[in-house]
């Protein structure tokens, strides 16, 4: 457990609600050329799943937990690292073409 167990389902619902509005507001007024880089950028951000997979692997007490946890960490790390590289390359291309144009 990352935080103590006082996080009730109600606080969880508050977090979910505020996060959902945040995501909506951040994206709501975006030019359409940024749609694909933003999709890639948000793909990177859910790479945070690697932290949950690390928790599952590090606290594993059996062989199944170790094997599936290993798989989860590898997949999550690939999600995060790959998402970063792809987004960075997309945005870099976007920026240079922007400079040439203007």
């Amino acid at each position, binding site marked *: 457990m*990352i935080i103590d167990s006082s996080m009730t389902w109600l606080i*969880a619902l508050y*977090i979910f609600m505020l*996060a*959902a*509005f*945040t*995501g909506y507001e*951040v*994206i709501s007024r975006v*030019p359409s050329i*940024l*749609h*694909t*880089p*933003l*999709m*890639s*950028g*948000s*793909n*990177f*951000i*859910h*790479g*945070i*799943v*690697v*932290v*949950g*997979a690390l*928790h*599952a692997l*590090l*606290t594993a007490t059996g062989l*199944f*937990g*170790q094997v*599936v946890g290993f*798989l*989860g*960490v*590898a*997949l999550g*790390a*690939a999600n*995060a*690292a790959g*998402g*970063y*590289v792809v*987004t*960075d*390359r997309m*945005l*870099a*291309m*976007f*920026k240079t073409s*922007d400079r040439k144009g203007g």
Partner: protein
Amino acid sequence: MYVQHLMGLSGLLAAGLFIFGLKRMSSPVTALSGIVVAGVGMVAAVAASFLVVFDLMHAGNDRLGVNVALALVALAVGAGWAWWKGGKVAMTAMPQMVALYNGMGGGAAASIAAVALSGDAGGSPLILGVTVIGALIGSVSLTGSVIAWAKLDGKINHPWRFGGQRIVNGVIFAATALLGVGVVIFHGVPSGLSLAILFFFGALVFGVMMTLPIGGADMPVVISLYNAFTGLAVGLEGFALQNPALMIAGMVVGSAGTLLTALMAKAMNRSLSNVLFSNFGDLSGAG
């Protein structure tokens, strides 16, 4: 005790940097620095998640050393492969790489759920239910994204359709959902384990079946939808793990991804249900 506080604070920092980075990415002028900001948050969160080792040393887990080694190897293998692959892939092949990486994130969320459900520690029905729903969405995102990747990469060239496909898919989904309910009810009972295996199998098959009939031209919208799915799955597993950083990052991506999907469908003059349930090839063939 300090360890838990440090991990909690690093999660808070990461969540804040993710939102700030995403905000910067949504404007052409600041977009490039946005991904760097979010990257700093990711490194901080991953580094801090190893702090749990100090807590576990006191608890005395005889597998701890092996687990740390496994974690380091898994991080190096996964990140190394993705970094190398993402750096050398052609610019035109970017969308399918996003699909592939997204599917892996869904797979990671499903693995977390699998580990949580395999344990015999009796969680509350609420936590178990959320874990199962996250597992379902994550698994669908995993196989669905892999099919989307194969279609864009030219490995699957023709949409696979047959009569009554929607009914078959509906039956698969209903059966998987029923199995999911069974997993929650029979958690901790030995026979519950075989239910869980069938449940994961059904969810993975449904992801394949849902994506196969959709034409290649619609794949960017579908990938965006699976991106939102993975975000949602990560958020739900974050609740199961009681980790607010995962909950926030996952739900922000879940809602931002849903909105992006709707915007992308709108840019194609289509509605989302039109993309998912009526087949583009059929429409153009008929008209």
